C-alpha cells in the first residue's frame, strides 16, 4: 500500500493537501501525510511536558509524550508500538480523530480562546498518522501478548465498526478466538458506510481488517445477530462471551412537514449509497443516488460535512456547477464538526448559511423536493449542551430553493438486536446500560461499547470503550478457568 507524501520543505506544521480544484473531481484522499522532515519539525516543537496534559485529553490515554519523543529520535517502529499499546488503529485515528477537541485542546501550547484548539497546539493527529502509516507501509506485525492461556475461548463480536474492530484486536492478541458478525456485506461499520474515502482511504481500512485476520480473527458478513441468531444461541454454540458494538444506526429526522418528499435523504442513506454501495460509480455500480443542481445539507457535525463534500464532488463529477449549501441553526463557532473538515468544505466551495432553522419542505406535483421554508434564528441562552440555543425570530420566514436535501442531524440506537433481547437493559434512548467499570450489560457475559452505549461519539471514544470491555472480558474469562 502506498501513502502519498509531500516532499516539499516549505510547510512547517501542516501537511500538503490535494488542491481544492482537483479534490472535488474525485474521491482521492485530501490530506497528504507529513513527510519525514515536516514530521520531525513538528515533533520537535513538543515541549515534552513533565505533566503532559495531552494524554489526559486522549479518550484512550495514548502516551503521546513518549511516542512524539520516539519520533524525534527517529524510532518510528517504537513510536508506532507506543501508540498501539492504547490504540489499535493509529492510521485511522490519525485521520479521523477530532484532535482539536481532545489531545490538541489539552496541549499546553493551545491558546484556549475557543472551544477547539488553536493552531499553535502540536498537530498530534498528523504525528499519529505518520507513526501509524509507518506501520502500514512497513507491515509491522501486531504484538501478541505473552501467555496464550485464553486460546481455548471463543468470543463473538457483533458489529465490525470501530468498537468491534478494536475489541477483536485486543482479544485476538491474547490468543482468544474471535468471530466478528457483521450485518452488511462489507466490514468496518461507519468507517466503511459513513466516512468517505477522501477522508479515510479504503486501503487503510482494508489493511487494518486484514491485519486482524492475520491475528486469527474470523469475519462473517451478512449475519444479523438478533435475526439469524440470538445471543442465547451464540452462547450455546460455544462462545464464552459476547461484545456488542452495534453502533448508533438509525438516522434522526427533523420532524417537519414534507420530509418524506423524494430526494430528501438521511445522511446515512446518502453516504451509504455512495460509500458502501459505490453509487458515485453508477451505472458501473448499480445503486443510484440523485444529485441535485442545488443540494442542501442540514446539520453541522462531521456527518454533515462529509455529506456536503460528497454532494459537491458528485455535482462536479456529473458536470454540474458546484452548488451545495450547509444550513445550520447556530453559528460557525458552535459547529460541532472538526475544524479541518469545516475548512476543507469551505475550500471546496460548500456554502454555509448559519442561524437558519428549517420549518417545512415543499415539493412539486411528482413529489420531488423543490424548496425549504426556513426561519432566521438568533442565539439565546446556553442549553443543556452548554452551547447557546438557537431561537427562531418570528416573522423572519424565507425560502431556499433545492432539488435534493440531506438531513444530518444525528443518529439514534438501532434496536434490531435490543428489540428482540428484552434481557438487555436499555435507557430511554434505547442505548445499552452497562457497568461503567466493565462495560458489561445486564446480561451476564455480554459486554458493549461504542455508540450503542451513551449515544453518538467519536471513533476513538468507541475504541476506548471497546478496550475497557476487552480487559473486562479477559478478566471474565480468567474467572471461568
Amino acid at each position: 500500500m502506498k501513502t502519498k507524501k509531500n516532499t516539499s520543505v516549505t510547510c512547517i506544521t501542516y501537511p500538503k493537501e490535494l488542491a481544492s480544484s482537483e479534490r472535488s473531481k474525485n474521491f482521492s484522499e485530501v490530506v497528504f501525510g507529513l513527510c519525514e522532515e515536516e514530521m520531525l519539525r513538528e515533533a520537535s516543537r513538543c515541549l515534552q511536558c513533565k505533566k503532559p496534559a495531552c494524554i489526559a485529553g486522549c479518550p484512550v490515554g495514548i502516551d503521546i509524550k513518549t511516542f512524539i519523543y520516539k519520533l524525534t529520535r527517529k524510532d518510528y517502529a517504537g513510536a508506532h508500538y507506543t501508540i498501539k499499546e492504547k490504540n489499535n488503529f493509529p492510521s485511522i485515528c490519525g485521520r479521523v480523530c477530532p484532535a482539536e477537541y481532545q489531545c490538541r485542546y489539552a496541549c499546553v501550547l493551545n491558546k484556549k480562546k475557543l472551544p477547539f484548539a488553536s493552531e499553535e497546539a502540536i498537530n498530534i493527529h498528523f504525528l499519529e498518522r505518520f507513526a501509524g502509516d509507518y506501520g502500514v507501509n512497513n507491515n509491522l506485525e501486531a504484538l501478541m501478548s505473552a501467555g496464550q492461556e485464553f486460546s481455548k475461548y471463543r468470543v463473538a463480536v457483533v458489529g465490525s465498526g470501530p468498537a468491534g474492530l478494536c475489541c477483536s484486536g485486543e482479544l485476538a492478541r491474547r490468543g482468544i478466538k474471535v468471530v466478528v458478525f457483521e450485518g452488511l456485506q462489507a466490514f468496518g461499520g461507519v468507517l466503511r458506510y459513513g466516512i468517505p474515502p477522501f477522508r479515510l482511504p479504503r486501503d487503510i481500512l482494508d489493511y487494518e481488517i486484514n491485519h486482524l485476520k492475520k491475528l486469527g480473527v474470523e469475519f462473517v458478513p451478512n449475519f444479523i445477530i438478533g435475526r439469524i441468531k440470538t445471543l442465547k444461541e451464540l452462547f450455546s454454540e460455544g462462545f464464552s462471551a459476547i461484545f456488542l458494538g452495534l453502533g448508533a444506526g438509525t438516522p434522526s429526522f427533523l420532524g417537519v412537514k414534507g420530509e418524506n418528499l423524494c430526494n430528501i435523504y438521511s445522511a446515512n442513506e446518502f453516504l451509504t449509497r455512495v460509500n458502501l454501495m459505490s453509487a458515485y460509480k453508477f451505472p458501473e455500480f448499480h445503486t443510484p443516488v440523485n444529485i441535485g443542481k442545488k443540494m442542501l445539507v442540514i446539520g453541522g457535525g462531521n456527518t454533515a460535512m462529509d455529506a456536503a463534500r460528497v454532494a459537491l464532488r458528485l455535482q462536479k463529477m456529473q458536470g454540474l456547477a458546484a452548488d451545495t449549501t450547509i444550513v445550520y441553526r447556530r453559528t460557525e463557532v458552535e459547529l460541532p464538526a472538526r475544524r479541518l473538515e469545516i475548512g476543507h468544505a469551505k475550500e471546496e466551495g460548500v456554502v454555509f448559511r448559519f442561524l437558519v432553522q428549517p420549518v417545512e419542505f415543499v415539493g412539486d406535483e411528482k413529489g420531488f423536493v423543490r424548496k425549504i421554508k426556513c426561519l432566521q434564528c438568533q442565539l439565546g441562552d446556553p442549553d443543556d449542551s452548554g452551547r447557546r440555543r438557537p431561537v427562531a425570530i418570528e416573522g423572519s420566514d424565507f425560502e431556499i430553493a433545492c432539488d435534493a436535501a440531506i438531513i444530518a442531524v444525528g443518529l439514534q440506537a438501532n434496536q434490531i438486536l435490543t428489540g428482540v433481547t428484552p434481557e438487555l437493559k436499555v435507557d430511554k434512548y434505547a442505548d445499552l446500560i452497562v457497568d461503567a467499570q466493565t462495560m458489561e450489560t445486564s446480561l451476564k457475559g455480554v459486554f458493549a461499547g461504542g455508540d450503542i452505549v451513551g449515544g453518538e461519539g467519536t471513533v476513538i471514544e468507541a475504541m476506548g470503550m471497546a478496550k475497557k470491555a476487552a480487559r473486562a472480558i479477559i478478566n471474565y474469562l480468567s474467572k471461568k478457568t
Partner: protein
Amino acid sequence: MKILSKEVISEAKGVRIMRIKISAPQIAAKVKPGQFVVLMVGASGERIPLTVVDRDDEGITLIFQEAGLTSRLLGKVEIGDVLYALAGPLGHPTEIADFGKTILVGGGVGIAEIYPVARACKEKGNHLTVIIGARAKDLLILEKELKALSDEFFVATDDGSYGKKGFTTDILQDLLNQQPTTNDQRLVYAVGPLPMMKRVAAVTRPFGIKTIVSLNALMVDATGMCGCCRVTVAGKTRFSCIDGPEFDAHLVDFDELVKRNRIYEDKEKHICNLHNLS
C-alpha cells in the same frame, strides 16, 4: 447463498416471474411468514429486499418478477451460482392467529407473498378466502397451491382472459357486500401493486375490517440504518424495513409511497438500456 433450483413459473407479454431456491439453512431455520431477505446478485449490484415465499431445511424460496436491472440479473443466475450477499430474515413476521374469516388478496407477483401467510392462517384454523389477480391468465402464479388451501377461491384478470374480468378489489367488494355485517373476527390481508393495496384499503374501510398490507418500499441496508423505505403511517414516519413491512392499510399514505417508489425511475431506465434490457 448457492442457487439450488430455478424455474420460470409464468411468462407472458415479455414479463417473466421466476422461482429460485437458495441454500441458506440458517436463515431458513428462523424465517417466518411475512419476513424478507435482502440480497446482492454481484459485487457491483444493488441490495434488494425480497419476501421469503417458502422454506425447508436446506434453504429459502423466493419468487420475483423481472422488472428492473437487479431482478433481471437475478433472473439470469444459474443453478450452482452463488449470490454475492444474502442477509435475513428481516422485518416483523405476520401476526398469525385464528381471525375467523380471513380474506387474502394477492395481485401480480404479490400472489407469491400471500402464499406463506395463507398456509400459516390455514394451520391456525381460519376460514380462508383467497382472491388472486393478474393482468392476464398467463401471469397468474400459484393458483393450484392457493386453491388447495382455500375454502373460497376467486380469480380476476384485467383482460378477462381467465376468471372474472376486472380487479381483485371488485371481487372483494362483492364479497363484503354479500356479508355486510362488520365482525371483529375478520381480517383482510393484501399484497400486490400499490394501487391495488390502496384500493383494498378503500374497499374495506367502510366495513371497518382490519386490513393489513405488506409494503414494497425501496430499501438500501434494510436494517433500519438509512430511512430510504420511510412511509407515513397514521401521520407518523415509519421505516418499512424495521417497523414493517406490514402496516394497517387504513393508515398508510399510499400516494406518498407511490411517488417515493419512483425516485429512481429515470436511472433505472437508463441502466436497463445500457444492459440492453429495456
